[in-house]
């Protein structure tokens, strides 16, 4: 047991994680590409045309997985924040800041596709639907995190401050979600739900799941790639970075 713990903490050091991340990210990127191709093929050519919503509904193959990912990534950020605060590991802060732009990207993607989907469905680019509103607030939370960590010069301080705001945020996300949902039912907003598309066919579900998996792989790949850049930037004065083959040129 203790042997395994030691092994885990070995990879918590940037110096040993850097080459590991370098080996891993191309694999995730490759799997992600294959899955995305398969998912897009299913969503555009295999999945049947919806009898109510026509071809326009196909955007949910991007929209729903993007929303899932944006929420999931925020939780992962908070997870790393908690690890960073508990064990005071440098890597966890780097992981959080590597994930934030990807999360913000998915939140934005979800909002954008939501608007594109809303226009033909509801006749308006924006509807104060509970899910869309929560997504918007989640996007604000991401922006807040990124702005805060960018405004603090000392990276260790920035990591710790970011950890606190992401933990405060993750406690608030369910509260915000339920308050918005409640507010929405009180005001009798849009009743059409994106995920409760009537009689969702099995192929639709498969397409969505495969796309979600592709996004997942993409997020892991890009986060690993970004964390490598962050490691290099922060550890540029150390000897192990100077001894890296890619620094010899």
């Amino acid at each position, binding site marked *: 047991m203790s042997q395994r713990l030691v092994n885990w903490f070995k990879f918590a050091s940037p110096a040993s994680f850097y080459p590991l991340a370098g080996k891993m990210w191309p694999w995730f990127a490759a799997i992600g590409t294959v899955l995305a191709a398969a998912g897009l093929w299913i969503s555009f050519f295999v999945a049947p045309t919806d009898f109510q919503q026509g071809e326009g509904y196909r955007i949910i193959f991007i929209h729903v997985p993007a929303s899932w990912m944006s929420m999931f990534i925020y939780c992962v950020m908070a997870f790393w924040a908690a690890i960073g*605060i508990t064990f005071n590991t440098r890597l966890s802060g780097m992981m959080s800041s590597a994930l934030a732009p990807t999360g913000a990207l998915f939140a934005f993607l979800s909002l954008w596709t939501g608007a594109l989907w809303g226009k033909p469905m509801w006749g308006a680019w924006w509807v104060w639907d509970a899910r869309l509103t929560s997504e918007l*607030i989640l996007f*604000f*939370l991401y*922006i*807040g995190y990124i*702005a*805060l960590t960018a*405004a*603090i010069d000392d990276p260790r*301080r920035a990591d*710790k*401050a970011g950890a*606190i*705001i992401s*933990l*405060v*945020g993750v*406690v*608030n996300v369910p*509260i*915000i979600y339920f*308050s*918005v949902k*409640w*507010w929405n039912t*009180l005001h009798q907003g849009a009743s059409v739900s994106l995920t409760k598309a009537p009689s969702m066919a099995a192929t639709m579900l498969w397409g969505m799941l495969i796309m979600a998996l592709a996004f997942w792989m993409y997020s892991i790949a890009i986060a690993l790639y970004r964390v490598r850049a962050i490691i290099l930037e922060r550890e540029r004065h150390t000897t192990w970075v100077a001894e890296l083959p890619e620094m010899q040129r």
Partner: protein
Amino acid sequence: MNAFIAIVRRDLLLAARRKSEVLTALFFFMIVVSLFPLGIGPETAMLRRIAPGVLWVAALLAAMLSLNRLFAADHQDGTLEQMSLSPTPLALLVSGKVLAHWLTSGLPLVLLAPVLGLQFDLSPRALGVLMVSLLLGTPVLSLVGAIGAALTLGVRGGGVLLSLLVLPLYIPALIFGAGAVEADVAGLGAGGHLSLLGALLALGVFFAPWAATAALRIALE
């Protein structure tokens, strides 16, 4: 506990010596609320409908205004260092500061709100609900705001950043606070909203000082 009372007393004394800062936030609240009828039009039915939201959003912004100076002066003159060296837990002292902040920035809003509510033709009953909702909600604003103020301490562009961090977190308080008054105007009863607001307050009282303290320790390092 003595130290807690000392902090509350000191901050109240400081606010009393610098009345202008408290009054500025109050007048800001009044002006923002008064601008809405000018922008939207004077039909009473419409004003009655938008009143809860307008009053709550204005209270939110007014509470934001004073957050900047919650810890900034103490950080600059070294008082914060002394507080963190006190045998009294820093979280308790921070709670004292938040309480003093609420007494000087939240409570005046609660007292002023019914007067401004009259401009929007709210019924006496709705005014009462508005006051209760602000009484429960403004401490939440001070508590959550303290986390943001502590995080942006000594950070470039702290003021704008503070609003970016804190305003999304204010949304539940806004929804339940304004919702309580709306529900009452619609004759649905405000009890549910108010209890949820109370739950938010309880949650904030337990966790916000802790988070703000952790953030202050980062700024002190």
